[in-house]
């Protein structure tokens, strides 16, 4: 028995038993601080290169406070009907764009799924194609479509349809790859051909997942649809950008409030529908 009181732990013994904790190599001890230091240094360099300065910050914040004060109380002025129509346009763009994207993405996603098309030679060009579409922002697609069909909400619908096509293609094909093989094999065993396998073995498993994703995208597209008007593709963004540029701050705050309320309402409705379709557990 040692003569030392018990509140001194046996350090030497601990060191011997847990060398990994007491004698970590220098490289692993320095890794985290070095990464943090590098990240912070890059932040500082970035702030410098992007022309941040305390003076500009202060002046801007002063302006911002002033603008915020000007926003109260939110007031649509005399253009409430215009705004409501624009909001309707935005919701229409979101709904139609998402549905169109889903319709076109479904067959393509079958071609991009590993369990349907096993050969990588056919699959990977389709995947790269979907990635490319996804890499381009919705706003850029909106500009392209404005060149094709002219200004207005129709260009917005097409922009959302195209950019979501990329996202859906990927998500759907992942859902299809995650489907259970046994049901497909069952259909094959009872003499079904490839189309039967997809229709009766695969789609019943995949459709609820897809429906959930489509609803989720309608939700998030309501957000995107509010901004594509900024480049002229219809909807409430057009009004918003106009009011911001003409410094009508009370109208701006009213429009922002409208967007917040509409997005919250769509969120609520679509999450209820989502739960109804796929059950509460599957989403969590």
């Amino acid at each position, binding site marked *: 028995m040692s003569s030392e009181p018990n509140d001194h732990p046996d350090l030497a013994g601990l060191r011997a038993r847990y060398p990994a904790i007491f004698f970590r190599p220098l490289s692993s001890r320095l890794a985290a601080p070095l990464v943090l230091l590098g990240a912070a240094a890059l932040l500082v360099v970035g702030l410098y290169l992007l022309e941040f300065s305390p003076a500009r910050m202060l002046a801007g914040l002063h302006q911002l406070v002033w603008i915020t004060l000007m926003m109260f109380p939110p007031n649509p002025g005399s253009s409430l009907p215009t705004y409501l129509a624009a909001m309707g346009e935005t919701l229409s763009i979101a709904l139609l764009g998402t549905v169109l994207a889903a319709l076109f993405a479904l067959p393509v996603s079958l071609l991009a799924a590993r369990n349907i098309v096993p050969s990588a030679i056919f699959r990977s060009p389709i995947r790269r194609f979907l990635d490319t579409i996804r890499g381009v922002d919705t706003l850029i697609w909106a500009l392209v479509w404005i060149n094709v069909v002219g200004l207005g909400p*129709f260009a917005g619908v097409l922009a959302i349809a195209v950019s979501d096509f990329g996202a859906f293609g990927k998500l759907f094909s992942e859902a299809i790859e995650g489907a259970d093989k046994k049901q497909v094999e069952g259909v094959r065993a009872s003499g079904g051909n490839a189309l039967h396998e997809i229709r009766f073995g695969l789609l019943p498993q995949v459709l609820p997942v897809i429906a959930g994703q489509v609803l989720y995208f309608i939700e998030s597209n309501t957000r995107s649809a509010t901004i594509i008007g900024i480049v002229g593709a219809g909807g409430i963004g057009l009004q918003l950008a106009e009011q911001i540029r003409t410094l009508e701050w009370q109208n701006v705050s009213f429009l922002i409030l409208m967007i917040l309320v509409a997005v919250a309402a769509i969120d609520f409705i679509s999450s209820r529908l989502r739960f109804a379709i796929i059950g509460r557990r599957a989403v969590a």
Partner: protein
Amino acid sequence: MTAAVSILPGPQLAALNDAYRKAVARKRMRMAVAAAVFAAALFAASVGAEVNLRTLFTYIGNFVSYFDRILTLESGARVWTDIPEWFWGWNKWLWLLGETILISYVGTLSGAILGFGLSFVAAENTSPSIWLRFVVRRFMEFCRTVPDIVFALIFVIAFGLGPMAGVLAIAIHCVGALGKQYSEMVENIDMKPVEGVRATGGGWVACMRFAVLPQVTAGFASYSLLRFEINVRGASVMGFVGAGGIGQELIVAIRKFYYSDVSAILVLIILTVFVIDIGTGWARQRLFGQDGRK
């Protein structure tokens, strides 16, 4: 004697069949109603969005020929036959792309730092007080619902044209988006270490630092990397409203019909997004293994 499948007597069977048919009919009815409502919504939407199939079919050729045009140099040759001519502005464009990445980096990091601080206040299990939690949550909701480009529009007026407005817009949006994801992660932690720290007399800050933080760091980093990816895409269009980055060049090229420039800049943006995607994917995998994505 062979075991036979027992067949129910007629009247009993009829009742069961009837119930079955009714259940199926009810389900079919519900499906039909849902489909009708959906079709009506689509119809209303197509009126609202001024969908005009005739316009589409008349001009769909434009869509194809637009790509034809942006892939043609002024001399009439295809762009890939003369790469130096196609990417004539690569010097300036690469610089602007660097600026775009830097905007999203600085924006994401400063948003992440703020969101990091707020997430402990917003999470149900670690929040010091209920009303503080309520206020922070509403604030974060506001930050992520208002699109970042709307913030950028307003900030351009307050802070002047340039990347600063873009950075601040992305940062604010990040506070909302990351703050929510972070706080959900904090809500999912194991509370026993927190109780342990509290039992040894640690205060709120000590609890967060020694009990919560070690459990969530990996997840936080993973979410931040994902958000950085998203923000690179967002920063590529910040220039549309004058908030810095490559978007400024792109919108000028599109508006002024510098066709081959449009495709060159688009190619550069897509490549950049790919590289960032692959890079952050690699970093996530490296840092947290397969399930780091969760």
